[in-house]
């Protein structure tokens, strides 16, 4: 190391020390997550009530397949949200295992949708549909909240954080859409309930490094 570099580093340390002010420590990820998730669920419930819950909801809640789908997506959104909060800390506080939980649940959901597509998918006519607008409304507030929370942290995995944010927000939005829209066909679900969140995820992935840069 040359004398010049030593001097530059010493000056840098001096300048960083000079800039130091007392900081409020980032709360534990769980303490950050709980208010977000309660807010997101309350918002989702309000939006579902506003749009009107589907008329065959009671029948659907007695259908094990529908219940499995809803609980799978809810767990996926919950685990991805938790994972996002832990990703806001550089070393994830040593809880890297949580990534595998969120990704496994996402993998099961993808396999579930893929299996149904193999059985009975037919490409629908894609046009403007109210489900697109509802998808934005269901997803916008949770997305905004989780992005703001993520920006306040310091992640060392910006792309993974974008992915987790998308899965969490998309999962909540998907539940909202499934509880308000009568269409159960896999083609409708893919093109109108999942596609908007895939597009959001693609944009978030492209911008991830810029959004969470520090």
């Amino acid at each position, binding site marked *: *190391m*040359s004398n*010049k*570099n030593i001097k*530059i*580093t010493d000056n*840098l*340390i*001096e300048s*960083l*020390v*000079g*800039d*130091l*002010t*007392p*900081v*409020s*420590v*980032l709360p*534990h990820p769980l303490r950050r997550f709980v208010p977000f998730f309660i807010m997101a669920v309350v918002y989702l419930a309000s939006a579902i009530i506003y749009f009107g819950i589907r008329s065959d909801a009671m029948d659907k809640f007695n259908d094990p397949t529908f219940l499995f789908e809803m609980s799978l997506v809810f767990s996926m959104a919950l685990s991805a949200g938790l994972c996002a909060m832990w990703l*806001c*800390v*550089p*070393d*994830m*506080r*040593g809880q890297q295992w949580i990534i595998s939980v969120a990704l496994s649940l996402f993998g099961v959901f993808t396999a579930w949708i893929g299996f149904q597509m193999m059985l009975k998918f037919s490409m629908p006519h894609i046009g403007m549909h109210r489900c697109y607008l509802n998808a934005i409304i269901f997803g916008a507030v949770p997305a905004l909240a989780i992005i703001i929370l993520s920006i306040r*942290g*310091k992640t*060392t995995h910006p792309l993974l954080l974008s992915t987790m944010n998308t899965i969490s927000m998309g999962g909540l939005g998907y539940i909202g859409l499934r509880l308000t829209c009568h269409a159960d066909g896999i083609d409708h679900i893919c093109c109108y309930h999942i596609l908007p969140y895939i597009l959001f995820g693609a944009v978030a992935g492209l911008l991830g490094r810029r959004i969470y840069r*520090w």
Partner: protein
Amino acid sequence: MRKTQNKTDNDTSWEALAVLAQGGDKRAYSALLAQILPYIKMRLVSGLSNADWLDDIAQDVLVSVHKSLYSYGGDRPFKPWLNSIIQFRRTDFLRQHYKLRDTKLSSAENRDIFSENVTNQPDFIELKGIEDAIKDIPDVQRKIFTMMKVEGYSAKEVAQEMDMSESAVKVSAHRTANKLKDILG
């Protein structure tokens, strides 16, 4: 056993210093930064193909530690937190470096830019690339490299001229040559 004990003491003191720094204690913060600097370099040096990057990345890591100090939980060991930042900054630096190098190469290879104005294009592009690359080298290193490799002075003569040791001059010229090779692909 003694080594383990020292390691534990070291870790504990970094945690304590970080917590004090979070409260605004400048002396503790200064001690922390000074103590982690050799560790940062030790972690970085094994994974870098060019030793000249070491200081740049180490400085980036120090700035990142400063920016993210509030994200350190005092109940956790300090080293894993620091290691994540080191890894992140190294990857980020290398990504930017190779991205920049690819951009430079593609503009140098774009012969259409010179086709209408330059008679001897291949020579021009080669020389222009070398000139541009040399411009990016720090002053002292550039002078040593130019004296030894372009003007033909011996290492001893350059050492006398620059008031440096002969081995330091040789190392500098060697590093500059590697850096140029790296920039020029």
